[in-house]
């Protein structure tokens, strides 16, 4: 058997398992947990385009989730426009905001960039909390918007069961992974990594680092807004604290950093490891030990940063490769 095929086999099996999972897992609670896991894997993979490849630390991605959620919801509530179209409009708007934030902030160094993204995100959240009507658009300030579950179906992006949501987010996740894979192999990907690691050297080679980062930011904020619309249609209720809070931004960054930023497997791995911790500790210890999962997050984050600064994907990829080598080697020897 072709070794490169063997290497890919486990991934194919995992993808197939993800496809049939809803037939096995029928409990809505577990499906909900899986959907959130995919949602965060999606968010983190989108974040990774700018936070991973470009080597900066954006801590305000919740803004884009919020823009996506609010745009599609306002358009569907007030104008009866399908959330699918709203999703696209929201993504374009989010992309624009992302570029506007990126233009001045990408000039800043490490910590200043992180602080500026926090300030933007929090500033926008505070404004949304204070605005009931933005021109003709009703935002309802801190009370948020409720989406009445009137007609379900694919066209209205609303379903009575969780399975359709599961497949939608699965497709979104697969798409974003394919996209980041393509980026990591493209010129843009190399520009980003070069600009992130040695900006001066990259510039000396004629790379327009600022432009590459802006493109990455535009893509990342575009994709993140999709997740916002998904979130709004999934929960049918959004308010500034639920879709724009700093906690979301930090959780995305935590997942990426623990899994391994700048790699394709990292965000997936991070979500796979951290989301269940968060959900199960909330289910089983939520009343007795509040905040337990955040303590675990913090401890894991610190340990990973101290002992595996490139994230958990590195040792795990090494183990995976070694196991694959042994399997392939064994088979080739047998043949």
């Amino acid at each position, binding site marked *: 058997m072709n070794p490169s095929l063997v290497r890919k086999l486990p991934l194919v099996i995992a993808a197939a398992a993800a496809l049939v999972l809803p037939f096995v897992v029928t409990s809505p609670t577990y499906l909900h947990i899986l959907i959130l896991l995919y949602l965060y894997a999606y968010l983190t993979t989108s974040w990774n385009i700018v936070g991973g490849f470009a080597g900066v630390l954006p801590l305000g991605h919740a803004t884009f989730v919020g823009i996506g959620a609010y745009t599609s919801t306002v358009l569907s509530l007030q104008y009866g426009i399908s959330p699918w179209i709203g999703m696209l409009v929201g993504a374009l708007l989010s992309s624009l905001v992302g570029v506007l934030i990126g233009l001045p902030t990408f000039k800043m160094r*490490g910590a200043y960039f992180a602080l500026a993204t926090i300030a933007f995100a929090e*500033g926008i959240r505070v404004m949304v909390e204070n605005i009931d009507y933005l021109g003709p658009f009703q935002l309802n300030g801190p009370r948020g918007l409720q989406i009445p579950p009137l007609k379900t179906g694919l066209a209205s992006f609303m379903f009575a069961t969780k399975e359709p949501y599961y497949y939608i987010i699965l497709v979104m996740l697969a798409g974003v992974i394919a996209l980041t894979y393509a980026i990591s192999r493209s010129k843009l990907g190399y520009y980003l990594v070069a600009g992130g690691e040695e900006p001066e050297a990259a510039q000396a080679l004629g790379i327009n680092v600022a432009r590459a980062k802006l493109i990455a930011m535009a893509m990342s904020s575009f994709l993140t807004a999709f997740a916002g619309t998904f979130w709004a249609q999934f929960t049918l209720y959004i308010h500034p604290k639920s879709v724009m809070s700093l906690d979301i931004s930090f959780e995305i960054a935590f997942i990426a950093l623990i899994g391994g930023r700048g790699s394709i497997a990292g965000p997936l791995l991070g979500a796979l490891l951290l989301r269940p911790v968060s959900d199960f500790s909330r289910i089983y210890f939520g009343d007795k030990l509040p905040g337990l999962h*955040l303590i675990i997050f913090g401890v894991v*984050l*610190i340990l990973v940063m101290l002992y595996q600064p490139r994230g958990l994907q590195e040792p795990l990829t090494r183990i995976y490769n070694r196991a694959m080598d042994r399997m392939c080697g064994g088979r080739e020897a047998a043949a």
Partner: protein
Amino acid sequence: MLFIIEDTINGILMGSIYGLAALGLTLIFGVLKVINFAHGSMLMVGMYVAYWAALLTGLHPYLTLVIVVPAMFLFGYLLQDVLIKPIFKAEKDVREPITVIIVTTGLWYILDNLSLLIFGPQYRTIPDNPLRGKMLEFGDMMISVPKLWGFCAAIVTALMVYAFLQKTRMGRAVRATSLDRDAASLQGINQYKIYNVAFGIGTAVAGVAGVALVPFYNIFPSVGVLFDIKCFIIVVLGGLGSIGGALLGGMIVGVIESVGPQFMTATWTEAIVYGLFLVFLFLKPSGLFGVKYDW
């Protein structure tokens, strides 16, 4: 007109306490060149230490300083020694290791949620507190007494830190390290020990701010978050690494917060502070008194 003067004075007083909290942050930045994201949580820890010290020993809230300051110094010293030093050793050639931001963010989450776990979410205040709600009256103006004491604490602490940096041997070593850590090492200064000391002092200053807040502020696990982002804003306004800048930046934020609500909804003032912060980041990232080299 009078109420604006009254608000301005109260804003300056409250702002000086913000500045006091930010002073610790700016001190740590000045030496280590990293932003301690857990600084608000340090303040929270300081408030809880002061609270329990006052409750268990029956000390006057301000006298808890004798417990809070050494405890917080030790806390900060050890944190830096155990958690942050390894990163500096691993990333020797990086001037501002971004990993430190991440580690201190992890610390922030651990400390906040640990105190939620241990002390519960309820708001606490010191029982039979002699200072609660005490006001000085000047004609029609009311000035809060605990805030006035906080103002004094901020000035005295800033002067003491300044004197330490300028007049003592250790202070000179701290300044040397903050200017050029490699050159300082070549002069025989143990830079890691200096980092520990700077982190310890910064944390102790956050503790002082905690003590200043305890008599009139609620104590709860996420109280640090309110101050965390405010401290970031203040140090950038004042210039990272500048002591006077931290106090002035704090006062600016304090005045906006206390005078602003006369003209708009109180929550909008928060947006104005963020806006001001961003304007400074773009136009003058070195802040009011910052060194150009440091940003």
